[in-house]
């Protein structure tokens, strides 16, 4: 089973939930797919064994064969190519590799065959372990934008038979969709604040459209108001766990410490969370 932990709003506790859920499971594969800002390694402290580059193909113009026709810039949806006219001379093509989404249209459609592709590294995937946990995460290079590409490459390392936890990026846009596509269950972590609830409703829209069974974890319960719980009740969304707003948890988090392996009460919360996930998932399977 692949379980993704997402949220909508950032900072609600995705990583806290994902990491501690991993700690209560006997044997698990853990993927931190927040490639723009991975942080699960700060808590799990994995021993990284393998680092592999993530490269994408970007165009290189052969100025000798280029006729300056402009077809490449015309078909580029991301304006990664510009054709500069030079009166009386051949036009010049400029390439902006950072804007390229590596679709391959320019090299495919160049009538002169003057475009070849060159690999450009945009990040790395690191793989290692911490105890029984197989740990992987992606790290995108600063200034890059193709996080979904790195997330898809990372997820290519998911083993079909393993219980897998994917710590998703925040938000509800392309990186999140890339992270949760194809998972068996999605845990949405929220906090009982107006902002937390607002973004939870956006995340719920996403998982419903993607037809992924899901439930909610309310983190920092007791802070703010009951609106998130009221919303879940009204929408018939199962609340899988509640984690109290507790200074001790915040102190532990701030030092990179974990919870479920440190106190029986915390272990119980995350063990029950996993049981609730399995139960809701089974009910969803029966209904479908």
């Amino acid at each position, binding site marked *: 089973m692949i379980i993704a932990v997402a949220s909508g709003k950032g900072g609600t506790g995705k990583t806290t939930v994902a990491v501690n859920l991993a700690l209560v499971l006997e044997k698990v594969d853990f993927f931190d797919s927040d490639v723009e800002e991975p942080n699960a390694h700060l808590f799990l402290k994995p021993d990284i064994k393998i680092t592999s580059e993530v490269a994408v193909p970007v165009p290189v113009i052969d100025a000798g064969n280029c006729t300056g026709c402009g077809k490449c810039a015309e078909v580029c949806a*991301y304006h990664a190519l510009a054709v500069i*006219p030079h009166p009386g001379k051949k036009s010049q093509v*400029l390439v902006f590799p*950072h804007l390229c989404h590596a679709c391959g249209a320019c090299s495919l459609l160049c009538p002169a065959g003057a475009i070849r592709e060159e690999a450009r590294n945009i990040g790395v995937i690191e793989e290692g372990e911490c105890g029984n946990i197989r740990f992987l995460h992606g790290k995108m290079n600063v200034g890059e*934008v193709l996080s979904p590409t790195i997330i898809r490459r990372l997820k290519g390392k998911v083993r079909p038979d393993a219980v897998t936890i994917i710590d998703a990026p925040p938000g509800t846009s392309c990186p999140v969709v890339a992270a949760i596509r194809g998972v068996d269950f999605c845990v949405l972590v929220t906090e009982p604040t107006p902002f937390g609830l607002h973004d939870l409703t956006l995340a719920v829209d996403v998982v419903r459209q993607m037809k992924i069974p899901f439930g909610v974890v309310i983190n920092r319960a007791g802070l703010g108001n009951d609106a998130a719980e009221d919303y879940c009740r009204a929408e018939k969304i199962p609340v899988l766990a509640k984690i109290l707003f507790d200074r001790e948890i915040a102190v532990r988090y701030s030092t990179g410490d974990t919870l479920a392996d440190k106190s029986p009460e915390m272990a119980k919360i995350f063990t029950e969370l996993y049981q609730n996930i399995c139960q809701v998932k089974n009910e969803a399977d029966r209904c479908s």
Partner: protein
Amino acid sequence: MNVCVTALGPMENSEVDPRFGRCAYFVFFNLHTRAVEAVKNPNVEASGGAGIQSAQLVASRAAIVVTGHLGPNAFKTLNAAGISMFSGATGTVKEAVAAYEAGKLARATAPDSASKSGIAS
């Protein structure tokens, strides 16, 4: 010869828009005839590549650009097209053209703002 001034409006007395790629209007000022022609910038809300697109638009109509700031992609594109760039312009379009003609604006020899810095400002 045309000077292109980035502006918040389409008139000679419109304020200079400090952004290049995402400025509201390109105001083209003919230094010989003193005629003014404005083009609404279609790249204001482009998700990316605004500077490159705007630079190509301007390069086909003017030889000189007067603006507030230039990002790296706009600079690279305008430079390749052989356009003279002057940054740090303020006031109205008319005042910016006068400042250019009086030699009071500094020629831009490098980009002076970061990618995406013109978004939603």
